[in-house]
């Protein structure tokens, strides 16, 4: 196993595990950032340079910040010593393990294990841009519209209601 890959995989997995298991929500968010950064590094390993940096830009720069804000905005009125796990967590964990097992079995049994390693592609940003503007122009437009709509919707949902009847 490639040591770089092993290190990044360990980092990512550790970050992910910490992100869903720590008690302190802010720590969770920060660990999530670690996981995201590890994933970005993995993308770089896979020669997907642009995607890797886009991952950092979006996830670390935006989503993580959003999560942090949400954490800060939804904290406060709850007592601190509540259980962190939901009431039916055993079942949930069971299902998660089952899914993990299923996925592992699927990967292990598939032919990708014997997949030949092809030479590394070197996609330039210009190629990506040309693809975006030709083959993928419609999805691009749609995603632009979606983002606009989501932004407006998020603002409206989260906006403080005017002093109405409580």
């Amino acid at each position, binding site marked *: 196993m490639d040591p770089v890959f092993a290190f990044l995989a360990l980092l990512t997995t550790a970050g992910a595990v910490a992100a869903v298991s720590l008690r302190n929500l802010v720590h969770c968010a920060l660990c999530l950032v670690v996981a995201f950064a590890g994933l970005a590094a993995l993308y770089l390993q896979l020669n997907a*340079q642009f995607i890797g*940096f886009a991952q950092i830009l979006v996830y670390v*720069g935006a989503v993580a910040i959003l999560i942090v804000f949400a954490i800060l905005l939804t904290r406060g009125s709850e007592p601190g010593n509540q259980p962190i796990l939901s009431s039916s967590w055993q079942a949930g964990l069971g299902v998660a393990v089952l899914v993990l097992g299923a996925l592992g079995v699927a990967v292990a049994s598939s032919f990708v294990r014997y997949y030949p390693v092809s030479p590394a592609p070197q996609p330039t940003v210009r190629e990506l841009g040309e693809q975006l503007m030709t083959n993928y122009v419609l999805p691009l437009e749609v995603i632009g519209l979606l983002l606009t709509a989501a932004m407006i919707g998020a603002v409206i949902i989260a906006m403080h209601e005017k002093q109405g009847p409580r």
Partner: protein
Amino acid sequence: MQEILDQLFVLLKAWLVGFFPLPWQPLVSILISVAALILVFALLFAVATILERKGLGRIQNRYGPNRVGPCGFFQPIADGLKMLIKEDIVPSGADRVVHFLAPIALVAPVLLAFSVLPYGRNMAPIDLDAGIVVFFAVGAGTELAVFMAGWSSRNKYSLLGAMRAIAQMISYEVPLILSSVTVIMIVGSLRPIQIVEAQAGYQGWLPAWHVFTPWGLAGFLLFAIAATAESNRSPFDMPEGESEIVAGYFVEYSGFKFALFFMGEYFGMFAISGLAITLFLGGWHAPLPFLEKSIPSYVWFFVKLFGFIAMFIWLRGTLPRLRVDQLMNFAWKFVLPMTLLNILAAGLWRFLPAGATRWLVCLVILLGAFLALGRSMVARRKWSPRKYRFAE
């Protein structure tokens, strides 16, 4: 001779790398670059602090530091020594790990950002195809560091400062990126070196820098505004706002950690100035044709950088601090629409035939937008002169 002078540092690095066996050479090359960067910018940091203090002193009709060394020029050394030997205080309620990690998380991305800037001919530490994206990506990381610092201190002022800083940085990151999109559109590449090379050559005496086009000028001004806000410099230094929240997110930091924050801020300023130079001011190119060969390219880059530093100091000494609502209104209602229209203007510039027509069209669009947006904002009385109420 001029060639050798121009490529002096490149040759030096190649010579040094030559001492090592072949498999180690990439790593050594990187290490040499990193060391050089840290050295140069740490030195620049020291120079900038003393320059700022002296400059501000001049603007504020006082001397500034004048005790250490000639005319007080060794003041940074004294400051550095003081910072290093000061006690490192961590508040008792603080989250120690995060408190410790925050300054590192702030400085590291900025140093990463330095790695993609071309400082002279063949003097880019790494030549990445998506260099501009890298710059913005790592720049986004600083926001998290600011949050970590503010949150982990468990201090209301620091949390408030962090929140302000994040809000401000996110708000101005959008126009920052959008105003640089114009350059990317025109050049057709995200590679910093290619962007700089696109600005080579002269039209008569005028260099072919992007700032000498309508969209480039507007983009540069908008970029400069957004950069000032992004690096939390005055007049956008609400996060630090010492009159309201003492010192913002690093109020609970002392000693070397504080020095790191201080350094991170200056490094951020240098980095974003370097990007502005790369994008709009022709990078390492000389402003006049006959200076192109006689003076090395890296000199031009650092001259421009010093120009930026001077501008920042001048702005800080001149302009008062904005209010938060003014800041946000300005970002979302003026700067953002202007950048969007600037993208339109750049597109028109790209596709209209060269000549007076596209100058006229772009100028009309941009000036019209400027007048209309500015008028509407003034008409809304958002920035009406403030009524001061003095204590009786």
